[in-house]
């Protein structure tokens, strides 16, 4: 799969990453090589195979009783400088 510099710019935008013009061609080349390597998966016939997004090993289900358990509260967390202090993030149009 050939990744172009404009592909890099497109994906960088999706990921909120700033890619410098000087980095684009090297990144395009490296990503192309990695995707070329990944192409080998196409040799496999996976029709009818279920995807595995997580190897489920736990017997207990994620749903539990809705009970309050002790944990670090916001008053504790607030001791860490700037942790919840955010700047003005609304931009006027």
């Amino acid at each position, binding site marked *: 799969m050939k*990744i172009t510099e404009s*592909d*890099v710019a497109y*994906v*960088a935008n*999706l*990921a*909120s*990453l*700033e*890619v*410098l013009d000087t980095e684009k061609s090297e*990144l395009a080349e*490296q*990503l192309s*090589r*990695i*995707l070329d*390597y*990944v192409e*080998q*998966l*196409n040799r*496999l016939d*996976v029709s009818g*195979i*279920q*995807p*595995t*997004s*997580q*190897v489920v*090993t*736990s*017997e*207990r289900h*994620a749903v*539990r009783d809705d009970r309050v*358990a002790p*944990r*670090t509260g916001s008053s*504790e*967390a607030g*001791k*860490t*400088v700037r*942790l*919840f202090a*955010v*700047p003005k*993030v*609304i*931009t006027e149009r």
Partner: protein
Amino acid sequence: MNLKNLTADKLALLYRNRDVTVTEVVRNLFQEIDRTDPDVRAFITLSRDRALEDARKQDTLIAAGEPIEPLTGIPVAIKDNIAVRDLPTTCGSKILQNYVPPYSATAVERLRRAGAIVVGKTNLDEFAMGSSTENSGFFPTRNPHDLTRVPGGSSGGSAASVAAGMAVAALGSDTGGSVRQPASFCGVVGVKPTYGRVSRYGLVAFASSLDQIGVLSKSVRDAAQMLEVISGFDHYDSTSADTSVGKLVAGLEHSMKDIRIGVPKEYFISGMDPEVRAKVEAGIRLFQGLGYNIEQISLPHTEYAIATYYIIANAEASSNLARYDGVRYGFRAEATGLQEMYRKTRQAGLGQEVKRRILLGTYALSAGYYEAYYNKALKVRTLILRDFQKAYETVDLILTPTTPTVAFKIGENVSDPLAMYLNDIFTITCNLSGLPGISIPCGRNSAGLPIGLQLMANHFQEGLLLRAAHQFEKAGGFNI
């Protein structure tokens, strides 16, 4: 006092006999760190004052006649992507340089409750993305056996700290081999438990379906002890397993009969270092001599594991790392608007390898490519898992080399990301299948560099895995 070869069980004996105090041991350890770490650079943050304070507390408890537990006063190092309350958790990244978590990871909390003493936070490849610790946003760590070589990664600081006697044991994290590969390169024991065995609460997420906290130590017994303490269900991690780990240490000496070890032919590839192959094959003969039955097996989808892994791991990473946007954590770049702040923060705060992986992961999840890359990789993951399920119908354990080579030179693989990825070829299948695996020393090459052998077991079979590794260790005597 020579700390270099001191294991936790030997140290516990010294405490029980009142031969040393915890304070003496911790002071001694920091002297060793002062001597050695300027060269090795295993630590990002040291916790000298708090460690000494904790040591004095333990000494007071011991003097008052409190029982000395197996981890009482044992100095441990923690990989810097695992939260320790009031110490920075940087993940080796500039973007988290000033982040101080107000809580500890469950695994750390359990170690401290068992009496262990945290000496510091260890270096890693940024966000655990790498196999050499060269990708740290701060500085590379060096291999204590040869300072011109890498310690492996991403838990390179943890492995190097244990190998150099700067910690008795350490926690690492293993997403594709990040505990076992550096253990192999540094000549120590490294165990990655079954997915879900250890709570991931407080472990900074890289690839959530693959990440697992593991242990690095000087002996299998110490690994078993640490694992016994940190394992178990945790309300804060809904993927943690509600399956008892049992008495791992007590189980080490149980005798075993008719244990079958499978040796997959796909793991003895042509590009392998001949000295590594020779030592691993000698290890197979050693197991045979101990009465284990050795069988050739096949895991036919092995060759697809790296491609599968780098799609899944990076897709998950691109999603997990979206949270580092300058709003909630650590570093924030100056900007006039929101989008610009996100971009500038991530540009300045994230390293090249991390950006490369986010781009690859985002690409694999983007419209038009999701089916072709991400979903395809998830299906191949099923095939890899089935290979193992089939193998475990006829064998109890699987034996492979941990890595194709010994520790490589610093700088040797930096310019070629793909060559670096190929380093994980023998370790990533464990993560894709959620299986437990361990790397144990099995000798050295002609230059004196350590070589590791990997054992894998079926889900939740850590007892069997550690017992076999312990027998091998006792018979072989390869440990530092």
